[in-house]
């Protein structure tokens, strides 16, 4: 392949972009060849999403220049970018929960006659598209609010692929997907590539990058570190350039000292999503919870935390013979249980409020006397956690909505560390987080366990789970399908267990 001009689909020259208090991008150069998959990698807050949004017309650049082919390109909005053949699937979910799947997919261009929607055509077309991305069984007339986060992500991708385009940007599309769904997406990417579509692919999963991309641009602190063909790189080299240091990616948990059982869940059931779930958790232990999307892991954790009410089943805490009464999160926290939710924006954060206020919220009484907050103490304590978790912030008064996804996640974790619970549940704690930060979180988990905390980690990243867990339980269709101890971990066995209930029941399901 030569770099002749007609081979270049898109060019960025010296792009700069600042947000209040942050220089998000400086002097970015990027060349995207026709029909290539170009990876953008970098730590949280490196500026990947910002760059993607500028290309897709969602942000306007401060200075610099963009070209599509040879022509100057200055998108004023998303519509404008799409007219130029540029489409984006964003990192954050942007679906309208009260509309149907089909309506969401075609929201920009609902087929209609005299202003009234042609539902027949709409549903048929949407059916074709969802089938294309492998969601053959999805009911396109269902309301989006009834889908799980993973399925919503797939709908979002389906919507992105619904119209033809020349340049497609995928911003962390696999963050909420399981391996099966990821494979389906990769097949789509291959197909688009064959149709000479150029793709910008943003992901924290280095293995994916090594597999499907042709070249890699690495960003650090809003600057381009390097651009190389993927073939010239190794996973280690990428990580190295991203963080500027070596990372070992091996098993973290060694000779864990397990204490007494602090949590015993017995036959927990809620509807069809959680069925007869029983397990134990010990002090000093990290229990990994694996499973396919929608297998009921989040639901189970919400039951333990009292966020939802169980139909039947009991929870025994700290060796007590009497079932604990946990009817709401307040009682859970009183019982020293914490839940780091998977949906940080909706359930974890107070977006317009400052970093400080977000962290201190879990235990304000500790900072106050006679109901009045000691503000200097508050500042000191939160600054402490910001440092411990190396959250990148411009000031403690910065609203968390201005932080990058990864840093937002760290704030959520910080607020629970501040509460200092005995049993801590992490639901997808590393979703959308860069390797550097991931590693920091692994170390933190390890440290917490060593301090004698009991920890549950729900994750869709099997490698991660195997690296950090002492034990892994696998959920499948609402049941615990299997448990593996540390010396028994294997990807094959765990995956098989995750599918087991679905395979057994295939015939019963519509």
């Amino acid at each position, binding site marked *: 392949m030569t770099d002749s001009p007609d081979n270049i689909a898109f060019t960025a020259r010296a792009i700069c972009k600042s947000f209040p208090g942050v220089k998000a991008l400086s002097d970015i150069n990027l060349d995207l060849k026709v029909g290539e998959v170009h990876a953008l990698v970098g730590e949280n807050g490196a500026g990947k999403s910002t760059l993607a949004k500028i290309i897709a017309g969602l942000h306007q650049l401060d200075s610099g220049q963009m070209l599509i082919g040879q022509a100057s390109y200055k998108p004023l909005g998303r519509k404008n970018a799409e007219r130029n053949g540029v489409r984006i699937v964003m990192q954050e979910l942007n679906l309208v929960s009260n509309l149907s799947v089909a309506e969401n997919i075609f929201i920009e261009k609902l087929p*209609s006659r005299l202003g009234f929607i042609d539902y027949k055509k709409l549903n048929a077309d949407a059916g074709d598209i969802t089938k294309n991305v492998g969601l053959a069984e999805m009911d396109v007339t269902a309301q989006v609010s009834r889908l799980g986060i993973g399925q919503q992500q797939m709908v979002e991708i389906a919507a992105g692929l619904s119209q033809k385009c020349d340049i497609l940007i995928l911003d962390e599309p696999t963050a909420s997907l399981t391996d099966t769904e990821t494979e389906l997406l990769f097949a789509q990417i291959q197909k688009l590539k064959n149709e000479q579509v150029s793709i910008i692919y943003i992901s924290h999963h280095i293995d994916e990058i090594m597999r499907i991309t042709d070249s890699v641009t690495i960003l650090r602190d809003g600057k381009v570190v390097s651009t190389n063909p993927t073939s010239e790189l190794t996973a280690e080299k990428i990580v190295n350039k991203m963080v500027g240091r070596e990372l070992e990616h091996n098993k973290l948990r060694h000779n864990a000292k397990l204490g007494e059982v602090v949590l015993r869940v017995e036959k927990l059931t809620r509807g069809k999503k959680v069925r007869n779930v029983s397990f134990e958790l010990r002090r000093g232990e990290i229990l990994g919870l694996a499973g396919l999307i929608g297998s009921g892991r989040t639901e189970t954790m919400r039951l333990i935390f009292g966020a939802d009410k169980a139909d039947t089943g009991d929870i025994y805490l700290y060796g007590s013979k009497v079932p604990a009464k946990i009817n709401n999160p307040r009682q859970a926290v009183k019982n020293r249980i914490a839940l780091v939710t998977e949906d940080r924006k909706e359930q974890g954060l107070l977006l317009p409020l400052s970093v400080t206020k977000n962290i201190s919220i879990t235990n304000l009484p500790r900072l106050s006397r006679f109901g009045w907050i000691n503000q200097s103490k508050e500042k000191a304590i939160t600054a402490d956690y910001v440092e411990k978790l190396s959250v990148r912030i411009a000031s403690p008064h910065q609203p968390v909505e201005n932080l990058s996804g990864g840093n937002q996640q760290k704030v959520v974790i910080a607020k629970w560390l501040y509460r200092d619970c005995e049993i801590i549940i992490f639901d997808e704690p590393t979703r959308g987080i860069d390797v550097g930060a991931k590693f920091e979180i692994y170390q933190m988990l390890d440290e917490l366990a060593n301090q004698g905390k009991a920890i549950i980690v729900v994750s869709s990243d099997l490698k991660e789970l195997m690296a950090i867990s002492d034990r892994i339980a696998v959920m499948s269709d609402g049941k615990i399908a299997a448990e593996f101890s540390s010396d028994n971990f294997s990807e094959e066995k765990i995956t098989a267990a995750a599918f087991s209930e679905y395979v057994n029941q295939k015939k019963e399901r519509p």
Partner: protein
Amino acid sequence: MKKGVSLPRWVTDYLGMAIVLAILLAIFGYSARNFFSLPTFKMIASQVPDITILAVGMTLVLIIGGIDLSVGSVMALCGAMLGKSLITWGVPLPLAIGICMLTGLLCGAVNGLVTITWKLPAFIVTLGMLEIARGATFFVTGYRTVDTATSLDFITETTIAGVPMPFVIAILIVALGQLVLSRSVFGRYMVAIGTNEEAVRLSGIDMRPIKVTVFALCGFLAGVAAVIQTARISSANPNVGVGWELQAIAAVVIGGTSLMGGRGSVIGSFFGVLIIAVLSTGLDQIGAEEYIKRIITGAAIVAAVILDYYRNRLSAAK
């Protein structure tokens, strides 16, 4: 065929309200004189059209996450324009009706434009319009009631298949509103905007024209309501419609529309209007003391939404 399970959604959606209505009818049928009679129903049919039409407009505005507190004042202004142009300025009838509706449309459009241009809460913008439109009404009428004599009688007196025209018009507007909401591109965008404005914006849809249209439509409907209201009392009263905005909102919310936007039903609003109308007619007919009327009306509004809560739980549990 098991009944409880197979009822279609639109039945269960309105079942709760139908029950409330039935209960009210039963109570008043028992306690009020001549309540179950043709005149009563004729009377209700002659009195609900204007507030129904206002409620339709309010439903649409609430669905996009807005609110319109100015409908009562705007209706008064439209009525004033109608009466004045017809009687004082000698404008021919069709043109006068046109002026009336145009006035509503303009007020609504101003509400919408101001709201979106400066990204202001509709609550405060339309609160401003409430005052402004009332002031304009006073200005136009010189604070005096305009007697429209018999010039609008044809509206109340024409019947279609025995049903008075205002009621037919109201029903048509309800039906059309529901159809637009659930079946048209415009209606789906309205729901989408009310549900997740940011997602709609990021989809590259320009929602400003949609929002302005909805506010304008609400104003226009206030104009339509004004024609019917003026015809009903054969005069344009500058003080009419005070507090109707809250009455319309109460009806709409009883009908199951969310004040947070994104969810609502025009047919539900119609039920809400009927519930309030039957309640107030019944109380008038038994000649209840004013203070009892107030307390019962207030309690009924709250009771209706509480009932709706249980109906929702019931249908969710299924």
